[in-house]
């Protein structure tokens, strides 16, 4: 275990740089919270506990993970989020939890974390564009939060919404997509122990381009299901809108489980390329449910995952 993280120290040293770039954000935070609140979160190390759900595959470097992202609010290029997400105001942050819950309300970021044991979950991450990575997330199970707010019996789905900060988000200014970004899960998917709300990577607070300060991670689904920078969680009876599904229903289904058998209309999903492996990286076979089939396949028993529930 210890050997695997030998290189982390190097990136821990680098990360504060992004915080320097966020001076505007810190000033905005200072205005809202008063000076006392600044130092704490910026220096916080999560010190997460390890998890049996972690893969033993080698995680990608912090640099790889944070410089190749899809976050259309900050532009459609893979390097755009790293370049532009510095303007995101992630402090203060709160998540509006509503719909069919017993304790609806506006939950402050610290409040969301209160009482949660943060775990390190090293997950494979498979993008629908046929690239993949291995990410050491820090987070807690979504179920733990849903149990806290009390899910009412009528709730069948969970809807998520990403922040819209027009001044900070060049992609929103240019209208490259129908914002806010929306996603959703069926209740059993949301309650699954693999489904987490992540607040960090490599024991660092979630970098802005990765979905600061809190995001969803659903490792057996294509990456776009793992919605970033969440400001709203709503429990619903009806299947909620999912942005990519709404934009191109033929190409992106509501479920979007990783499935090598079901090609994207414009490319094969049978193989993927791990980022950070250089120009001569071999493609590797994509696994059903991104290799998490033992844990999740039973949720989809009897469903046609190729034609109907893709």
């Amino acid at each position: 275990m210890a050997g695997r993280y030998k290189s982390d120290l190097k990136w821990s040293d680098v990360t504060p740089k992004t915080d320097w770039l966020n001076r505007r954000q810190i000033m905005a935070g200072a205005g809202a919270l008063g000076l006392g609140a600044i130092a704490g979160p910026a220096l916080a190390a999560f010190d997460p506990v390890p998890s049996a759900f972690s893969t033993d595959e080698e995680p990608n470097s912090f640099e790889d993970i944070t410089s190749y992202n899809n976050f259309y609010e900050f532009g459609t290029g893979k390097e755009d989020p790293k370049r532009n997400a510095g303007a995101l105001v992630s402090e203060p942050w709160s998540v509006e939890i509503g719909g069919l819950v017993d304790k609806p309300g506006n939950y402050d970021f610290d409040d969301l974390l209160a009482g949660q044991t943060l775990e390190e979950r090293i997950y494979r991450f498979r993008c629908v564009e046929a690239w993949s990575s291995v990410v050491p997330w820090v987070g807690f199970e979504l179920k733990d939060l849903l149990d806290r707010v009390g899910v009412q019996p009528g709730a069948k789905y969970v809807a998520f919404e990403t922040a819209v900060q027009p001044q900070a988000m060049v992609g929103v200014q240019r209208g490259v997509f129908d914002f806010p970004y929306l996603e959703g899960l069926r209740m059993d998917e949301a309650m699954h122990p693999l489904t987490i709300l992540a607040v960090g990577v490599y024991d660092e607070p979630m970098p802005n381009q990765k979905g600061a300060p809190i995001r969803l991670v659903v490792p057996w689904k294509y990456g776009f299901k793992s919605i970033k920078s969440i400001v709203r969680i709503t429990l619903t009876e009806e299947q909620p809108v999912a942005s990519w599904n709404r934009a191109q229903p033929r190409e992106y289904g509501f479920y979007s489980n990783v499935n090598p058998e079901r090609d994207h209309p414009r490319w094969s999903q049978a193989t993927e390329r791990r980022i950070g492996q250089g120009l001569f990286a071999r493609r590797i076979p994509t696994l059903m449910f991104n290799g998490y089939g033992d844990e999740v396949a039973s949720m989809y028993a009897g469903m046609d995952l190729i034609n109907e529930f893709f």
Partner: protein
Amino acid sequence: MDGRLPAQSRSDRGALASAEFPPGAAAAMTMSQRVNGALRRVPTWPVYAIGGAVPLYYFYLGLTGGLGPEPVKALEHALGLLALQMLVAVLAVTPLRDLTGVSLVKFRRALGLLVAYFVTWHLGVWFFLDVQFLGAVWEDITKRPYITIGMLGFVLLIPLAATSTNRAIRKMGPLAWRRLHRLTYAVALLGAVHFVMASKTWATEPLVYLGVICGLLIYRLRPFLAGRSAARA
């Protein structure tokens, strides 16, 4: 394309302009003549040398981490974009000469061959580094419309590159050669559509390329449109 019609219209415009604004028009003529004079002394080999080296430089960047964590896609896209940019340059030579008098015609063959060169690189990276499996390549070509369209563009480029020598022009005769090389218009359109279709959304950049290429092709339709309105009048 290099025939009498554009030349005639140019001198007409010159005569008209000099009647109205003699000094300015004279200066403009001198300017384009001066540029053309300077261009005559520029050899074409640097175009080949610089253009030829650009993919090698990108490849070097990909090897050394300069293209980010996923260098294969970055390299593939950079090469495709270069090809499309060269196509725009090739198509812009005639309008530039018509509108400003500046003639880059002597560089057009080099620019056109660079299109074929960049597309070959683009295809090579796609084939050897991206898709990697021969079966998958064939499946991509037949099953994915944007790849079918891109591949068709490449196939149409082959006769153009193959007939790019003076000998080929002599052998075919200038009329047949010119007719064959109108395939460039189809190649440009296919390339731009390929780019638009390869994007996940209606991204701005590919649409700009498509718009510019459509504009350059519509420019070529003008004589036909003008001819029709002249016939009506």
